[in-house]
């Protein structure tokens, strides 16, 4: 797999073209929103977490414009939460652990791949970690997710 193809895997281009969770959900019940911006390219994302009464993450929706990496990453994050949340939601501790693991892998310069069992489609973003200038693009949605939970 050439450098470019390891970055832009089919799955990534798919998610960026048919993004999941795009379009902000209504602010019903417990919820929190975060707006993040990549100052280098001007990409932005607005991400909303809705929580269950117990404070678990119910779903993630988002809106924004950006490169295919940042769009795919947001889409993958939303679908990962959708898959894992179930009826009781995803405990915030689990969400935080996911974010931490994602950040660590992305900063690893290709040494720590993301586990597909845990990250689902988002595991395809492992290749980004070799492109240090693009790590911020992939992180954008996840930073927004973290920030939104902190505000919740």
């Amino acid at each position, binding site marked *: 797999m050439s450098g470019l193809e390891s970055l832009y895997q089919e799955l990534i281009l798919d998610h960026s073209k048919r993004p999941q969770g795009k379009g902000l959900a209504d602010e019903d019940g417990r919820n929190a929103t975060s707006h993040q911006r990549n100052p280098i*390219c001007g*990409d932005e994302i607005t991400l909303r977490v809705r929580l269950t009464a117990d404070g678990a993450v119910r779903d993630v929706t988002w809106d924004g414009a950006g*490169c*295919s*990496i940042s769009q795919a990453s947001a889409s993958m994050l939303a679908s990962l939460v959708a898959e894992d949340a179930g009826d009781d939601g995803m405990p915030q501790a689990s969400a935080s652990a996911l974010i931490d693991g994602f950040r660590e892998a992305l900063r690893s310069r290709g040494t720590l791949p993301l586990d597909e069992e845990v990250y689902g489609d988002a595991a395809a973003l492992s290749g980004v970690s070799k492109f240090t200038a693009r790590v911020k693009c992939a992180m954008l949605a996840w930073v927004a997710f973290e920030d939104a939970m902190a505000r919740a």
Partner: protein
Amino acid sequence: MSSPAPVLDLAAIRADFPLLHQEVNGAPLVYLDSAATSQKPQAVIDAEVSFLTRSNAAVHRGAHTLAAEATELFEDARATVAGFVGAAPEQLVWTSGATAGINLVAYALGNASIGRGAPASAPFALRPGDEIVVTESEHHANLIPWQELAARTGAVLRHISVQDDGSLDMNAAASVIGSRTRVVAFPHVSNVLGIVNPVADLVALARSVGAITVLDACQSAPHLPLDLPALGVDLAVFSGHKMLGPYAIGGLFGRSEVLEALPPFLTGGSMITTVTLDEAQYLPPPQRFEAGTQPVSQAVGLAAAVRYLEGVGMDAVHAHERALERQMGDGLRSIPGIRLLGDAPGAERVGLWAFDVEGVHAHDAGQFLDSRGVAVRVGHHCAQPLHRRFGITASVRASAALYNTADEVDVFLDAVSGIRSFFGVTS
């Protein structure tokens, strides 16, 4: 152009730039990001190294032999660089770059506005309701310092709009520049549009209302023959690293009357006559604006850079880059889905083009080019308002310098034509 462009000996020129000879992602590097920062010829590196290994000492301060030698080299460098832009040595102030130079002017005007200057500075004071005029095409470096100055003084910041074809709206300029205008700041060449602005017309408008002009010459100094006094501007800035020189040095040119009237900005050593614990008296320009240890080896390096440019000849540099610009522009226009920013017909230009790739984000487009060894800049290029005006947040920019070849432009164009299909965008 009717006469054939003077041909540069590109093989010889390229041999002078060590960085260019490398592979990136398995392809020969095609460096088309010189508007961000230029590469340095060996002569610049050698000049700095020779200074540091043979003549290095504190300038303007020591009486010992080495210090005297260093001082001479430093002041010779000032004369050389001043000469390159048509100025006298005492009209050239060293700065750490163009951004620092514009901030120097903005803060000095701010200091004049609160009475921190000599009586001669009073005419430069800004009062609430006075106006500062910039253009919509400004690099943030020539925009935010004026926003802050306006906020500090109560002055109002206005702007000259850019037309759809990238040219300045000179009708708007004539109505925006008026009796309350005190400062008109504008780029000689926008770092996104590549169009040479009508300096003489803007200077005439500013003069007619008694406003001072501040020229951002970052993108012209490396590419055009430049005579700042002949252009009639009051102040102008440029950056060393964009004109084959070192980082961390730039120049502020000022007409002598203006520099002499302005109060200092940075204060500290080497810019004073008498200092007591309570107050300080300041030297005349350029020293008044050069507080603390200066970029000494960098000045020597920048002098070597302008000597290199002069050796090639700025007319030849301009003609060569103009030819590359035409080749790029023609090629890009023929690729489906490419939208050039600032394609004003018949405009005088330097060798750069920014463009949007329909359906592909600039970051992705740049990444694709990089995989072919082509280094371009993607993003807003520190010109968010201009991108917003064109309805986009980011663009791809290819910018040439004297060391680029027509073959490289071909590689670039070929790569650009592959972007949309790689990302599955059909036109």
